[in-house]
């Protein structure tokens, strides 16, 4: 494969995005739905309950699902308009084969031909270069059954170690930090505990736009008397009226947490009994934070000393609390350190594992939680098992009917997969529901690597921008076209229900994977007849693991409006709150509530290092990136939904009036933004809602509107998350058209 098979404009003309708007049946208030399907929104990790209205195999609207306890009918604009992704003009109805002679680059082919061509290419590459020459990259918006199958497919069928997923770009720093400190990677508390907290600390989470439903929990806590602390370089909607706003310089979160812990120790606001009984490692952390006095902390973080002291006092002296964080502290080359810093102030306060005392990361992707538990992460096997642990390997090998020796060892993260393409080690790629050309940092490199591949097969329901480079595109399934389970940000496993059947030649993703396995002649272990059958095997595979689903059934999940894992047997009610004193887990086996053999949590030194790229005279601004409320991830879905595209049709540069004035930039002016890796032109949104040393660009767009042309591919050494939240740029007024 080489460059794109046709001009980008020509491909867009044929495959979109074309924004869909309500029309015909969807505008006719006289049309009665044939059925009302209770399922969930596909557009973030909160997985709000929603009822889809179906008429003649078409989604015609929605009705709030008031009974679902997490959101009680509430939805953000994405949820409201999600039904418009159904029956979409851009929907892939046939398999496609790259065809540069066609005006739009692809020709529709028989599904069977596309599958056998894919299998043929996989065989050729693997026999020519070895099994490791093929990589699989997968999505964290898929149902857990599919993510389980993807891991099994890579390891059992393709026998490649190289599988990773786009959750790598999302919550992995939190996951790594949680595993280091708690031994388990899951929100420690259900959101209901937020309501009982007296202090809610939100670090690096634009709750209003990225997890809108959580807003009501925060405001409700405030009604109940809580003080709200928000740490963010931008005045986000939730920061606007919070009680204490800490306008941190991007990339300095761990410094703030260390500074807070310093004051807590100094003032004696440490829960000594808890630290003594339930944790280890406090002393070395206390030693480390000694240098983080308020003055030094203030210098590093850009927050005034007074505000830091105020925050420490609020946090140190309260009786109940909830700390939430998200990508703002995680998307860093030291993201895991930031997370550990946050966990340290939680552990030092002793406020965890009790009602109203909690901690969680706000998972961003649809199945960000479930999607990282069951084997599509490069170093994990189902049940959140460790691929390097012989015992864990043996358990999974037995479930899969193979020998542990047959399973490959750990692979590499998704960015490293692209580096391996660059080194010529990986020649073939299979992707599903992943759009790395938009989502990976420094994506000019990613594009070059896609062009270097010998074979690339993409499975998706729309032709995403990465798939423009594909040799074969297989038409997969939309969220509402399949059933399965998903685990939410809270750790609540919920059930997705099928509302409509896939149109044309499109089919459920798990069927496509099984068809490829069949065409390869390796169908053993890939003959499931339904998602339920996959789930039954997943239950067995997860039994005894940390993420234990063995006590879950579809019926139990639906009856209880979701069940929190771990749920080790069918009579078990699930575990909404982790780490309760006296609770049992398979690692500690009664020694304590945390998931280590001694049952104790770990204080870990959270060491500060500046972001990989510093600002300087040449590139004087910090660029930080993030979401807007009307779009989801790379926008492959939401840019196709007219009313959402209308809301934010384009990315913009948010910049403070002070620097804007110096640059001669007024609101709405076109500006050129350049980093060491790329450049782009956008409209400026001049607003007093961001630090003067920082600028912000949302990331949901491709090509010349993709901010990931500018971002840096620096990664956290532990979690391998890219540093989306800080890189250095320069800005000038752009006179061209």
């Amino acid at each position, binding site marked *: 494969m080489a460059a794109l098979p046709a001009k980008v404009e020509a491909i867009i003309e044929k495959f979109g995005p074309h924004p869909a708007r309500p029309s015909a049946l969807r505008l006719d*208030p006289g049309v009665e739905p044939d059925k009302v399907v209770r399922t969930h929104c596909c557009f973030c990790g909160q997985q709000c309950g929603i009822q889809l209205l179906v008429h003649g195999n078409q989604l015609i609207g929605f009705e709030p699902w008031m009974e679902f306890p997490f959101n009680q009918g509430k939805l953000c604009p994405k949820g409201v308009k999600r039904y418009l992704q159904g029956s979409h003009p851009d929907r892939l109805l046939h398999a496609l084969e790259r065809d540069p002679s066609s005006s739009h680059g692809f020709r529709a082919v028989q599904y069977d031909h596309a599958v056998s061509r894919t299998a043929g290419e996989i065989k050729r590459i693997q026999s020519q270069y070895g099994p490791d020459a093929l990589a699989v990259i997968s999505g964290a918006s898929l149902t857990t059954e599919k993510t389980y199958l993807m891991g099994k497919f890579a390891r059992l069928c393709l026998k490649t170690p190289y599988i990773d997923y786009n959750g790598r770009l999302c919550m992995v720093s939190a996951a790594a930090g949680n595993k280091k400190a708690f031994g388990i990677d899951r929100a420690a508390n259900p959101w209901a505990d937020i309501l009982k907290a007296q202090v809610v600390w939100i670090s690096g989470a634009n709750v209003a736009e990225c997890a809108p439903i959580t807003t009501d929990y925060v405001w409700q806590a405030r009604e109940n008397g809580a003080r709200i602390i928000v740490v963010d370089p931008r005045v986000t909607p939730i920061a606007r009226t919070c009680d204490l706003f800490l306008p941190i310089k991007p990339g300095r979160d761990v410094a703030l947490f260390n500074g807070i812990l310093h004051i807590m120790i100094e003032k004696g606001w440490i829960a000594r009994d808890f630290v003594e009984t339930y944790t280890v490692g406090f002393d070395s952390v206390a030693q480390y934070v000694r240098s983080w006095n308020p003055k030094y902390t203030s210098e590093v973080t850009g927050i005034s000393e007074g505000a830091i002291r105020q925050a420490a006092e609020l946090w140190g002296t309260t009786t109940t609390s909830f700390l939430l964080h998200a990508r703002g502290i995680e998307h860093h080359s030291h993201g895991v350190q930031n997370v550990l810093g946050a966990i340290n102030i939680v552990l030092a306060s002793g406020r965890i594992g009790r009602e109203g005392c909690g901690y969680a990361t706000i998972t961003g992707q649809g199945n960000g939680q479930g999607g990282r538990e069951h084997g599509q992460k490069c170093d994990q096997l189902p049940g959140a098992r460790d691929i390097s642990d012989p015992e864990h390997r043996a358990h999974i090998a037995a479930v899969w009917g193979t020998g542990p020796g047959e399973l490959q060892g750990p692979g590499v993260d998704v960015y490293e997969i692209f580096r391996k393409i660059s080194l010529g080690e990986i020649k073939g790629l299979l992707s599903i529901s992943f759009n790395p050309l938009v989502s990976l940092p420094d994506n000019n490199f990613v594009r070059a690597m896609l062009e270097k591949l010998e074979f690339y097969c993409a499975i998706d329901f729309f032709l995403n921008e990465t798939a423009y480079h594909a040799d074969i595109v297989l038409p997969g399934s939309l969220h509402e076209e399949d059933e399965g389970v998903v685990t939410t940000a809270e750790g609540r496993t919920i059930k997705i229900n099928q509302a409509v059947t896939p149109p044309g030649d499109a089919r459920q993703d798990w069927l496509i994977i099984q068809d490829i396995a069949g065409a390869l002649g390796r169908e053993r272990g890939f003959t499931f007849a339904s998602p339920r059958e996959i789930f039954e095997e997943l239950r067995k595979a997860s039994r005894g693991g940390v993420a234990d689903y063995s006590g879950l059934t579809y019926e139990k999940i639906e009856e209880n409006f979701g069940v929190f894992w771990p749920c080790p047997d069918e009579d078990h009610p699930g575990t909404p709150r982790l780490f309760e004193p006296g609770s049992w887990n398979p690692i500690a086996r009664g020694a304590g509530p945390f998931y280590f053999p001694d049952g104790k949590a770990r204080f870990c030194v959270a060491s500060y290092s500046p972001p990989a790229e510093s600002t300087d005279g040449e590139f004087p601004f910090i660029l930080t990136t993030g979401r807007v409320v009307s779009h989801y991830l790379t926008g492959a879905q939401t840019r196709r939904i007219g009313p959402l595209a*209308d*809301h934010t049709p384009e990315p913009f540069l948010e910049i403070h009036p002070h620097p804007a004035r110096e640059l001669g930039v007024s609101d709405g002016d076109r500006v050129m933004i350049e980093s060491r890796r790329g450049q782009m032109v956008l409209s400026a949104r001049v607003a007093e809602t961001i630090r003067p040393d920082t600028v912000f660009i949302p990331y949901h767009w491709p090509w010349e509107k993709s901010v990931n042309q500018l971002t840096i591919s620096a990664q956290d050494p532990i979690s391998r998350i890219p540093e989306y939240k800080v890189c250095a740029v320069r800005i000038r007024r752009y006179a061209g058209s």
Partner: protein
Amino acid sequence: MMPGKPEVRRALFWGVLFTAILAGLIVVGSRNLSHFDAALVGYTFAVLFALFGIVYRYAIWLQRPPTAMYWKQGWQAFLAPRHLISNLAHWVGRCVTDIALNRFIWIRGRLRWLAHWTIMWGCALAVGITFPLVFGWLHFESVPGDFDSYRISLFGFPTADFSVHSLFGFLLFHGLVWSAVFVIVGVMIAMRRRMRDEGAAAVQIFAEDFLPLVLLFAVSLTGLLLTSSYTWMKGYGYDFLAILHAVTVIFTLLWLPFGKFFHIFQRPAQLGVTFYKDLGRRGESATCRRCAKPFSSRMHVEDLIRVEKELGYSFEAEDPIGHYQWVCPPCRRALFALAQGRMWHGPGSQRAPGIPAQGSSHVNPGLGEGPLGEEDRENFHP
């Protein structure tokens, strides 16, 4: 003894006057009732009563402060000598697009338009044929010496002759059949919408929304049955049908001043509104006293302030506002939230006196889910 209130007295006066004029015209037009068909006297009295009711209600309506304002200003705008020629041209154009073609309903929905347009023209055709016949203004006489021809007599003056067997004759004598078919088609479409549209179902009222359709349907159906009776069934049940038809028609006529039908007389006021708006656009804009941006016309704001005073409102405020009407609608929304936010968080960022506020903007710039149309944008989001 006249009832007390002056506006009622005025309305009664106009009602009686119009009714008397029509009665006089009937007498004169039917040549002292010589062409008047005594069998149709019930219809005549129903029309006279309906006219009284309509004029009475119209007169009451015109005396409400906002209506009076528009009535006066609309005519002044229309008759302004400088623009009279172009106004007349616009008037003709708007009569065609709005009244004859119902363009504004076309935009609301194609089926809705079809329903309204067929009902409207069906009724207009029927009224055009029957009223002159009933009043004795129009009648047909046989042409002496030619059994196959009729002569049309208008207000007693003989006009053209035509052959019974001509196409014109066929169309003319079956005019009521066509009108009935038109009305029935429209009523069916409208009924279908009312039966299945849940939005419509929630706000509809029987007397307001269903009864008119039922009446029109009854009039049309009984009319068609009459035609069928004498055309194909040798007059079977004709007398009964004639009475039934008369009852439906008379009830409909009597209902004209009360229910939805009154919009037939009220609605043409929209033409006057357009001239008022034209005048406003040609004149000065109102300027918001908070954001200093233009909104609507100064004339309209001043007229509204007057109307509100007459209605007993006191939106007068301290300077520099003067009257709340001088704050544009988006700034009213902003003030509402700022006043509440201030109660929660104390005073916010303040602007210096004389520096206009930034002015708010719709969160969704897309028209589809934001402001509705261009005028809305001008009014709200300058």
